[in-house]
């Protein structure tokens, strides 16, 4: 579904990721794990286009999107739920979700998507009139994920969904991500530094450290290989 070939990207001339190649197949829940500053956010932003790529190629469902304007990519079914949630704080929950459906094709019903999101996160249905900026972190994360789901995506990119959330809420958020992947068959890429929940939810795993991929493959193989310990503790 998504192939990255030798991606390099960064800020102000310095590459934050170098020669990163990865593959996401339909139905995968891929966990991209690595310590803080490893380049996870840079990788996701390079895929969704908000960061210009210095080198390499991104192919999504057979379309080369390397040079495609970032605002066109959601139309192909690529949803990015950014780090720090970035909900539209001055808009209501319902407006946030409705903006998520900006690229929804004419044949698909916005109400159906809305019902799907409200079913996944019933709390959003209760709070639909509230300004998103006044909600708790966990609720804002639900809004951000819900906003991404409104476009009926083929691939959901989640950047650090656990960031700044209480453990109980993290469990709840990850339960919905697993539900999206296993029950609804959505392809998901989660970038996380939190290991336990990520490894429990994904079926494939990529380890990233200092801007480079150090291991990738089936979850069990990665866990057994010790690559994760090496990335986090440098042993």
């Amino acid at each position: 579904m998504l192939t990255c070939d030798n991606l390099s990207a960064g800020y102000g001339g310095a590459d934050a990721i170098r020669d990163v190649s990865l593959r996401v197949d339909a139905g995968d829940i891929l966990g991209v794990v690595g310590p803080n500053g490893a380049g996870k956010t840079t990788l996701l932003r390079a895929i969704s286009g908000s960061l210009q790529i210095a080198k390499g190629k991104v192919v999504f469902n057979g379309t080369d999107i390397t040079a495609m304007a970032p605002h066109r990519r959601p139309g192909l079914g690529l949803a990015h739920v950014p780090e720090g949630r970035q909900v539209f704080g001055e808009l209501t929950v319902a407006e946030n979700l409705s903006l998520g459906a900006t690229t929804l094709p004419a044949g698909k019903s916005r109400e159906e998507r809305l019902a799907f999101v409200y079913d996944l996160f019933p709390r959003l249905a209760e709070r639909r009139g509230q300004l998103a900026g006044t909600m708790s972190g966990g609720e804002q994360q639900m809004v951000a994920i819900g906003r991404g789901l409104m476009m009926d995506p083929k691939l959901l990119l989640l950047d650090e969904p656990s960031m700044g959330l209480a453990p109980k809420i993290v469990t709840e958020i990850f339960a919905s991500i697993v539900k999206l992947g296993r029950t609804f068959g959505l392809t998901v890429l989660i970038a996380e530094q939190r290991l336990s929940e990520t490894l429990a939810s994904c079926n494939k795993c990529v380890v990233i450290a200092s801007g480079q991929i150090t291991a990738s493959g089936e979850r069990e193989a990665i866990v057994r290989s010790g690559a994760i310990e090496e990335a986090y503790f440098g042993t």
Partner: protein
Amino acid sequence: MADIEAFLQQLVPAIAMGCVYGALCAALSLVFGIMRVVNFAQGEFITAGMYFGVMLVLFLASFLQFNSFALALVAAILAFPVFFCFGVFLHKMLLSHVSGMKVIETTRDGGHQAQLIVTLGISLLLQNVFLMMFGSRPQSITSDISSQAWALGTNDLMIFVNKGRVIVTIIVVAVVFLMYQFLRKTDLGARMRGAADKPTAATYVGIDVDRHYGIAFGLSCGITALVGVLMATFYPVGPFVGFEFIIVLYAGVVLGGMGSFIGAFWGGLTIGVIQQMASLIVPLQLQNVLVFLIFLTLLVLRPQGFFGNNAARL
């Protein structure tokens, strides 16, 4: 009784002028609030609208036997689409290079320095183009309606209300109301608010942020010019008239709570009323001193403005 009469006689045109200021502030907040650009050329868009009105009314009057106030209304309606296109064009040619997605991610100051130079440049250029084309002699749209008044009240307490100013006030308030509803109720309005709030996140849902900023700039230009045409029916236009307004208008935008469209209207209304009423207690030359004195006092008491929220922007 005479005191009350003098006060009311001053208050009614002050509110009329305040509504005009409010509409101009609201238009300014479309650029300031949505694009985060401080547009110094906005004053010249007012001037441009006023000249557009004066010239179009002169032209139309040469072959149409209508009242020149009615022609001014026609000119105001025409000014909106003309200046909308002008704004979109100007944004595409100049402002899109120093604002929007291009600078939000890559520059530390959000491109404000470049925006300042560009809009100040447009402002100076337009002022001198006006001077070359129209000369320095003030001009206005004269009509019988703008010199007629309705008498309100009884013999004990009577005030006169200028007919032209009443019509202008009703129109500008209606324009602000329609624009507010457009921003609140339509999908395009919601996309513009989203692009203003979190530009990068807006691209993640498929919003072309720069295009929506262009539309905001065009709408701001269009409203400003429309109001400018109406202002020409009671205020003489010279090449530098817009510059007189711009500082006071920014005070209105800040007072309303930066970025809030309807807040900017109330801020402008407040500033306008204070300015016009000031001449009751201070000499005319000092009326802006009183405006800023009250403006600063209000900011001390309520730093976030009338409609701003004091939560930090993340």
